[in-house]
C-alpha cells in the first residue's frame, strides 16, 4: 500500500513538473515568447557569463563527482557552457557551445557524465543534439536535448528538458532537468564565483 501511494505521489509530482515546464515552453505570456522561431530571443543574456560553483547541499546528489563548475561565456546569440566535474584529483570537462539562432546545435561529447553509476554510455563519435532558447526575457535558458545511449541491450534514444534559471540578483543559477529515462527530476544550484 505504501509503495502504491509512493508511486502515485511520484507520478503526480512528475506530471505537475511536466505541466509546469510545458507552460514555460514557448507560450510564456509574460515574456511574449510564443515559441515561433521568428519571435525567439536570440541575444544571450550577458549576466549568465562567469564562473559558477555547485552548491552540493542544495542540489541533487552528483556522486561520483564531488562538485561541478560551470564557466559560461556569451557572445551575441552564442552561449558556451564549459562544465567541469571533479572528484579528488580527477576532473573531466565537456563543452556545450550553442547558438540560439540555430534550430539545433550538435554538441560532440565523448563520455556521458550525467550518471556514471549506471551502465549507459554514449556511442562513439556521438553527442547531444540541443535546441536552445531564451525565455522569461532572457532570464531562463531552455535546452531540449536528444541523444542516444548504449546499454547492454543496445541503443536507446533519450530526451532531456533542461532549464538554467538566473536569479534576479544574478548570483545564483538554478538548473532543472527532466530526462526521459529517469523518474526523478534533477536540480543543481550554482553560485557565482568571483
Amino acid at each position, binding site marked *: 500500500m505504501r*509503495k502504491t501511494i*509512493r508511486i502515485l505521489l511520484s507520478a503526480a509530482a512528475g506530471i505537475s513538473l511536466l505541466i509546469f515546464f510545458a507552460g514555460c515552453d514557448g507560450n510564456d505570456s509574460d515574456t511574449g515568447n510564443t515559441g515561433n522561431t521568428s519571435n525567439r530571443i536570440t541575444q544571450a543574456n550577458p549576466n549568465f557569463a562567469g564562473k559558477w560553483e555547485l552548491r552540493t547541499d542544495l542540489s*541533487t*546528489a552528483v*556522486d*561520483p*563527482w564531488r562538485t561541478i563548475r560551470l564557466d559560461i561565456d556569451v557572445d551575441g546569440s552564442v552561449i558556451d557552457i564549459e562544465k567541469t566535474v571533479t*572528484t*579528488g*584529483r*580527477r*576532473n*573531466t570537462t565537456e563543452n556545450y557551445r550553442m547558438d540560439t539562432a540555430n534550430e539545433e546545435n550538435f554538441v560532440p561529447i*565523448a*563520455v556521458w557524465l550525467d*550518471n*556514471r*553509476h*549506471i*551502465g*549507459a*554510455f554514449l556511442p*562513439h*563519435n556521438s553527442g547531444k543534439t540541443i535546441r536552445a532558447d531564451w525565455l522569461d526575457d532572457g532570464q531562463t535558458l531552455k535546452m531540449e536535448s536528444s541523444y542516444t*545511449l*548504449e*546499454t*547492454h*541491450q*543496445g541503443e*536507446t534514444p*533519450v530526451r532531456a528538458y533542461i532549464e538554467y534559471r538566473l536569479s534576479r540578483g544574478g548570483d545564483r543559477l538554478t538548473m532543472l532537468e527532466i*530526462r*526521459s*529515462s*529517469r*523518474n*526523478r527530476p534533477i536540480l543543481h544550484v550554482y553560485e557565482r564565483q568571483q
Partner: protein
Amino acid sequence: MKSLFSLSLSLMLISAVSAMAGNNRSYAYAYDPEEFDFPMYSMEIGEGWYIDEDIGEIAMLLSLQGLANKERPQLYYVYPEDWIWKITRSLKAFYENRWGFDFIELSSPEEALETLGHHATGYVVWDKDERLTLMLAFTRAGLDNVLVVDEDNISRAEAIGLEMVEDYRGQFNGMTDAEIFEIAMDRYWERSNKDIAVWQGGFFHSRRMEPAIADYGIFRGAFQTDLSANPEDVEEMILHRRILEELNPRSLIMGWHSYSKDTEGQHVSLTSSYGHIMEGLNSLPNISFNTQIPFTPGFEFRNNHNVEPDEILIPEEKVYISLIQTDSMGIGAWELEGRGEIPYAWQPTGGWSWLSPAAVQYFNESATPNDYFIAGGLSGPGYMYPKPIPEEHFWPLMEKTKARHELLDLRVMEIMDYSEGNRHVGNQDLPEELVDRYYQAFPDVIGFINGYGAARTFDNRDGVPFISYDYYLGLGRPPEEVVADLEELMRLNQKRPYFLLIHVRESQSVGHVASILNTLPDAAEVVPLDIFLKKAGQADTIQRRFLSEDDPVDYNPY
C-alpha cells in the same frame, strides 16, 4: 581416530612443506598444529596512526609482532573498532572457540617487550622527520631481527637490554624519495626476499600511515617501500621497475600504493605488467600470525550453491537483480547488520587460503544460506589487471587461480581492469581476445563477472555468460537516487528478461541495501548470483560487446 587425525595433519603439513620447498614462498601451515601448546599473547593495539602522533609506539609493536611470530605464531593484535579491517576481534574469538587458543592478554607495550623482546637482537632508530626511514627500518628489522623504534621509544628498547645497531636520524635529510630508496636498495635489496615486496602507502599527503602489514614483511624478510608507479616520477619508477624485474616470477606484492604519489590504477597496472600478484592492503593486520594457523582439521570450504553446474534455467520476462560485494570481505559488510536477508555474493580473497586460512574458514562457517562465494581473486590469484599481464604469465597465473577455485568451491570468475580507466573515466573493458583466453582458462565456471563501476564487456558462450556490472552502488549515494538509478536502467534496458548486476561498495550493510531494493517495482527479483548467471546464459537479450579501439582510454593520471 586419533591416528586418523594425526595422519590428516601430517598430510597437511607434508603438502604445505612441499609447497614451500617447491617455490620457497608459502609460509602457510609452517607450524605444526599439533604443537599449539605454547603461550600465545594478544594485545589491544591503539589509535595514533599519524606520523606526528603515536605511530612510533605502534611501529615498534608491529616489528615486535613480526619478530616474535618468526619463531612461532604467538602474538596477535586486536585493532580499534574503526579499523578498516573489521574482523580482528571476531577472528580472535574464532581462534579461541575453534582452536581452543587461550591468549594471554598483554596490557602495555612494556609488558609486550618484556615478554617477547628477546626475539630482537638490537634496535634500529627511524627518523620522525623523514617518514621513509620507517620503511627502511621495517626492512632492516626483517633482515637482521631488530626492533624498530623512534627516538621516543629508545628507552623502552634499552630497558630490555637491546643495543642500537643503526640510527637513521639525520642521515637522509633533504634527500628525495628516490635518493633515499636508492640507498636503501644498495644496503638491503640484495638480502631481501625475492618472492615478496611490501608497499607501505599512506593517506593525507602521507601523514597517516597504516603499516599493519609490516609484521608480515618482517616475517618474510621483505623489502618495504612506497616507490611511485606514476610515470612522471621518473627516478622512482626506475627503482620500482628494478624491484619488479628482480623479483621471482609471479611474486607477491603486498600492501598498497601511496595516494600522494600515484593511483591504484597505475600501481596495479605496473605490478600486473610484470605478472606479479597484488594482495592489499598496507592496513591488513596479523598476517604473520594468521598465515601459520591452518584450517581446523577436517574443514573443507563449502559454497552455498543453488544450482548444479550443468543445470539449465530458463528465465522469465522480468528484471533479475543480483548483488556482489567485493573489496575483500574483511573490510566490508560481513560484520554489519542484515546479512542473510537477501541473496548476496562475496569475494573471499583467494590468497587468504594460505595467508589467513582462519579468516576464510570463519567466513565460510558464519555464512548464511543467502551468502554465496565467488572468485578467489580479481582477474587472477590476487588483485591484477588482465590487459597488462604478459601472456606468458597469464596461463600459469590462471592455473593458480583455478586451484583456489577448487579449494574454495568457487564457480564464478571475476575480473577487473583499471589499466585504461576507472569508474569515472576511460574504460574497464576487455578485448575479445582476452575474453577468449578467460573462457579457455576456466572451462568449468558458470559465469564471468567484469568491472568495478559499470562496464560494457558482455558475452555468452554455451550458456556461460560474461557479464559486466550495470550498476555501482556507491557509499554516499542517497537511497532515493539509487532507486531512481535502478529504475533508469530498467527504462533504458526495455527488453525482458533484463539482468541487472550490482556491485555494492564495501561498507554498505546488507540491511541498508535490502531496504532500498524493497522500494523497487515488484517485477524486479533479487536472485542468488549462480541462478542469475544460469538464467542469463539462456537469455537472448544481452548484446555481445568487447573493448573497441574507439573506446575512451585514460591512464589514471590523477
